[in-house]
């Protein structure tokens, strides 16, 4: 049982890494009071997913998926890359929107600390 676990842990490390990075991002989103740090956490979270996608696209010994005449090379799967490219665009847009929101919040309240914001909102109504 336990001896099966080690190879499992070792060979599937990409999953664990993705999960660990994801958790780091999630931690930042939950625990940090600074809104910018929350966005950074969100980005880390998203990055973990990108890495996960990229890692599943990998084919051992595969090369870049560019068709070469006559070659019988093993390609890595290109589709996840394309998908992730789109996902990255989405993530960038999200970050942009989030940052612009933070800037406007800062202009409105003069703070980007969530605790201060909650105190202010509680005070004003």
């Amino acid at each position: 049982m336990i001896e099966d676990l080690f190879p499992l842990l070792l060979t599937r490390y990409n999953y664990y890494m993705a999960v660990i990075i994801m958790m780091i991002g999630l931690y930042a989103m939950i625990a940090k009071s600074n809104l910018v740090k929350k966005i950074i956490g969100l980005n880390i979270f998203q990055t973990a997913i990108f890495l996960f996608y990229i890692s599943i696209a990998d084919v051992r010994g595969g090369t870049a998926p560019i068709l070469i005449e006559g070659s019988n090379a093993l390609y890595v799967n290109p589709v996840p890359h394309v998908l992730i490219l789109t996902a990255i665009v989405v993530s960038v847009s999200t970050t942009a929107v989030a940052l612009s929101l933070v800037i406007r919040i800062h202009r409105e309240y003069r703070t980007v600390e969530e605790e201060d914001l909650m105190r202010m909102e509680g005070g004003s109504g």
Partner: protein
Amino acid sequence: MREDVVIRTVCRAMIPFIQLFALYVILHGSSSAGGGFQGGVIFASAFILYVIAFGIMEVRRRMHEKVVVALSSLGLYIYAGIGILCILFGAGFLGYSAIPLPVSAAETRGLMMEFVEIGIGLTVMAVMTSIFMDISVKEGGED
């Protein structure tokens, strides 16, 4: 903004290359890794670098906000226009090969794809720039 000769000079030297590279990435979207999204972002980063080095007012003088709006719309119109053109020629949306050009179907496909990539690149560039300018202008305006 404080004058800094080194930064300005380096930027002045870098920006054309960045833009050139962006164009390269955009135009090779159909046949290799790259495309409108990536190229557009790179192009926008050139503007952003320019803003950082020369200040926002300079950029706004050279590239008015309305130009950005026009460019982003133009990009989308190119994309949608080609799509609808394909429909008009009886294929599906973005069914490029239906467009009757005096070249082979594969080449038509590639050519049209380039146009679409250019459109996407324009839009992405304009939107990225406008987001950045939006954020920095208003902050500057009030401070």
